[in-house]
Structures are given as C-alpha cells and as structure tokens.
C-alpha cells in the first residue's frame, strides 16, 4: 500500500534535534531521521527502542566459544593427538591452557562478524542493496526528518507542514512510498 510521507530537510544537526523535540512535544510521531553521522542524543528524543544487538553479539560469541572448543578438541585430541610442549596430554583439560588464546580469538571473531552482518541485514544495507535514504545529500551535509501520515492521523497535512515550518527547515518534500 502506498503511503504518504513528509521529508523535512535541515542543514544543522542541532536545529534538527531542537525541531524534533518541539514536534514530539506536540505529539507528532517522528518515524525516522537520516543523517551523515550519528547525532548524539537523538534516539531518546524520537523514541528509538534500545537496540538488541548486544544480545545477538552474546549469542554469536557463545557460538564461537563452543565451535572453537569442539573444533580444537577434535583436531588436537581426537583426530590427531598433538604433543603440546611435551606435556602429558590426551585430554582436552590437560592442554586447556594452550587452547585459551584461540578460543578467545575465535569468540571475538564470531561476535564481531556476526554483529556486523546482522547489522547490515537488519538495516538492509548489505553491499548491492538499493539505498534507503530519501535524498543523497543526507550522506553529505544535510539532515532529514521523516514523518508518516499514517502515524500522525490526528493531524491534517497542513497542520504537519506548518509545524515543520516553525522548526528551521530549509526544504520540504512529500512522497508516496511503497
């Protein structure tokens, strides 16, 4: 279903932040903000939910730890018993110390790659995916607030536009997106 959205453009992140505060105070729902860099403190203003990326990172890390443990037990103990520094070996626990660095590194690698890929997938920004931002200038020096009519049905279109115009915008644009 096609949806009508309003894009209001600013040329300063502080002006955008003050504008967003004003809009939210009046009960307007800001659905998104596009910016070339992270704007400190914008998340609580427009009500972005706390990210769950940390939980995902923990799950990836645990996967890494388990895989590394299982892998090294198989490679170094079961499949081809390795003589590690002349130590009496034969079990995983006897040689545990030698496996700690690799377990640690593999845990970090799985967590980091897992987080990065999850992040790109969730934001639909994997390499080759079509760009999501409304205006190429938001990757340079402009900032855009996105309002959806469906989320602000208590306001008429004119009301929304006049409220936006009080917040120091430099351009305004309306689109229908799918």
């Amino acid at each position: 279903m096609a949806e009508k959205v309003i894009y209001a453009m600013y040329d300063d992140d502080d002006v955008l932040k003050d504008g967003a505060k004003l809009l939210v105070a009046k009960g307007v729902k800001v659905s998104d903000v596009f910016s070339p860099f992270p704007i400190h403190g914008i998340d609580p203003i427009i009500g972005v939910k706390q990210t769950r990326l940390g939980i995902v990172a923990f799950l990836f890390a645990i996967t890494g730890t388990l895989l590394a443990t299982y892998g090294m037990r198989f490679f170094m103990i079961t499949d081809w018993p390795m003589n590690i520094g002349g130590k009496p070996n034969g079990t995983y626990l006897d040689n545990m110390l030698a496996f700690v660095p690799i377990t640690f590194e593999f845990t970090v690698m799985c967590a980091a790659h897992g987080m990065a890929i999850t992040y790109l997938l969730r934001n639909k920004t994997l390499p080759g995916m079509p760009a999501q931002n409304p205006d190429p200038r938001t990757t340079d020096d402009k900032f855009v607030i996105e309002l959806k009519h469906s989320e602000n049905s208590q306001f008429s279109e004119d009301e929304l536009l006049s409220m936006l115009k009080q917040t120091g915008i430099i351009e305004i644009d309306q689109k229908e997106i799918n």
Partner: protein
Amino acid sequence: MEFKVTNKSKTLTNILLGVGVLFTAIGIFSHVGDHNLVQRIMANGLINGFYFFAIGLGALFFLALQYATETGWYASIKRVIEAVAGFLPYGMGILAVVLLIITFLDGAHVYLWMDPETTNPASHHYDEIIDGKSAYLNKLFFWIRTLAYFVVYFLYWRGFKNRSLEEDRVGGTEIHFLNYRKSAVFLVFFAVFSSSSAWDWLMSIDVHWFSTLYGWYCFAGMWCSAMTVLVMLTIYLKKLGYLPNVNDSHIHDLGKWTFATSFLWSYLWFSQFMLIWYANLGEEVVYYMTRIEHYKFLYFGMFFINFAFPMVVLMSREAKRHAGILTFVGCIILIGHWLDVYILVSAGSMGATASIGFLEIGLALVGAGFFIRTILKNLTKAPLTPVNHPFLDESIHHEI
C-alpha cells in the same frame, strides 16, 4: 563548589585507623618471639606501602593519559582524579620509609639480595645467581633508581597540580597545550619506570626468577585499582550532591574503565602463566610452584574475583551505570587487588609461613583509613569543577 569532609567520613576513617592500629598491635604482640616477626612486619609494610602508593600513581597515569590524548569527557571529574593522585607524595613517603628500614636490616629476608652473605663467595649462604645479578641488584643502585622514580613522579605530579590550579585562574589554552606536551613526556618516563620499579620493588623478592611481563602485570593491577577508586569516589561525591556536571555517561565511562582494566590485568596474569607453562621454562616454574603449593586458594580465588566476577557482573550497560552495583563490585575488586599484591610480596618472602592474621588486616586497615582521609582532604583543596578547562563544555554535554 567546595567540598567539605563530612563528619560521618571522619568518624569512619578514625574507626578504620583505630581498629587498624589495634589489630596491628594484637598481631605484633601475639607473635613476639617468632623468628620471622620482623620479616612479616616488613613484608606487610611493603604490601600496603606499594598498594596505596600504586593507586595514587595509577590516578596520575590516568590523568596524564587524558592530557596526552586531549580527552574531553573527563573534565568534570578531573579534580577527583587529581585528589587521588594527590596521595602520591604521602604514598612515596611511606614506601620510602619501608624500603629504607628494609635496606638497613639488610633486606629483612624480604630482599634476599640485600643480604651481603649471599654475594660473599666465602659464606655458606653464597648464592651464585644473586651474585650474577649484583651489578643491577645492589643497595646503592637500587636507591639511585628508587629516588629517580620518586623525583620524576613527584615533579610531574606537582607540575600537573599547579598548572591545573593556574588554569582555573588565568584560563586560555596555553596551559592545556603545555600539559599535553608534559604528559606525553611523562608517559614515556612512566612506561619505563612502571616496569623497572616493579622489578626493583617486587620482582626482586623472587630473586632467582624473572619475567618480562611482570612490570605490565603490576601496572595493570595499579591501573585497575585506581579506576575502581575513581569510580567509587565519583559515585560517593555525586551521592552527597557534589559534581552537578557528572551524569550517568561519566559513571558509565568510569565503569567501562574498571571493566576493561580488569580484563587487561587478567590477560597479563594469564599470559605470564601460559608462556612459562607452554615453553617449559624450568627455571621460571619456581614462581608458580610456590603459589600453587602454598597459595592455591588465594591465588586462584583472587584471579576469580578480579576477572570472572567483574566480567559477569559489569557486562551489561545498566550495571555500569548503577551506583550500588559499581560500589559493590569496586569493593570486591579492591580486596582482590590487595590480595594480588599480598601474594606478590608474601610468596617470595614468607613462602609457606605466610598467613593473613591480625597484623595483615590491621596494617591494611590503617593504610585504607589514611588513604581515604588523605584523598578526602585533597578534595577540599580545590574547587570540584575546573572552571577554565577548555573541554569543560564537552564534558558537561557528555552523552554516550
């Protein structure tokens, strides 16, 4: 806003000092006649002398690190860091007295290499390994180095302190850039001195043994203790209503430092162990033999509370912003690092005869009482907000 030491904290430090002195006296009188009493007293003097000195030094290092990296967020807690670093001259004084007495007692069986018998080929206490190291480990060179550390630390500490107060009066950026250059030079000195002072004061206790990681290990311990003290002191001041510019993000950052330096310390603890284990270095195994035979519970218990405990408890974002959790973890970590220094000194000197009794706890309480009282008094000597710090505005708006 000027800080005033509350009557409650005065009473608390007085109780700490009183109980400490009482315990120490009980500890000494109940062991009169023991052949190793002097050794035990001197070992404990060294433990507490080094431990509290190291917290002050860790804070000075942290301050220099902020200057050298031109960090902004710390500006509102700068006076807290300076107050902890202000323990340095007192800590140096105590450590110097302890080291001086040990030197006059020919090592007091803490530093075996100070005993002239060990380097005398005619004596039956002659020790070839110690004799081989005597070009570096001798009383004169030891004191030259020790004084060099103290003089350099003291001069830089005084310089940072005076410039910080001057900045409050005159403002501008000139002092900021001077601090930037001075701290970079200080960090170079510190990089060398933190390692070699750990060899001199602590590693030479295990005189037959050596480890190239030892200096960093001690440094990581001091840094972690200093960060823990800083976060707890900041929370304490915040609770009393001081430091209006400090918000949750500052506390979060300090919590992250505590978390990260705990990891740094654990990483070095493990690396030192693993390298010796992996490479089968026979002559270095003695260090771990002593610890595993006589200190098994404390040695691994201390590793657990300095590593696994903060890792699990401080992992989440909320925990690093929660005053109660941070204070609780901080107290445990500080005890853990005291135990670390206790084992560093005792295992090499007292060996199997070491135990934690009235004497150990008493002297640690005296040290803690004196330390807390001194840093609280230091806080009263300067306004709690550095008004003309060039990054103060950034710090006030710190948000992560």
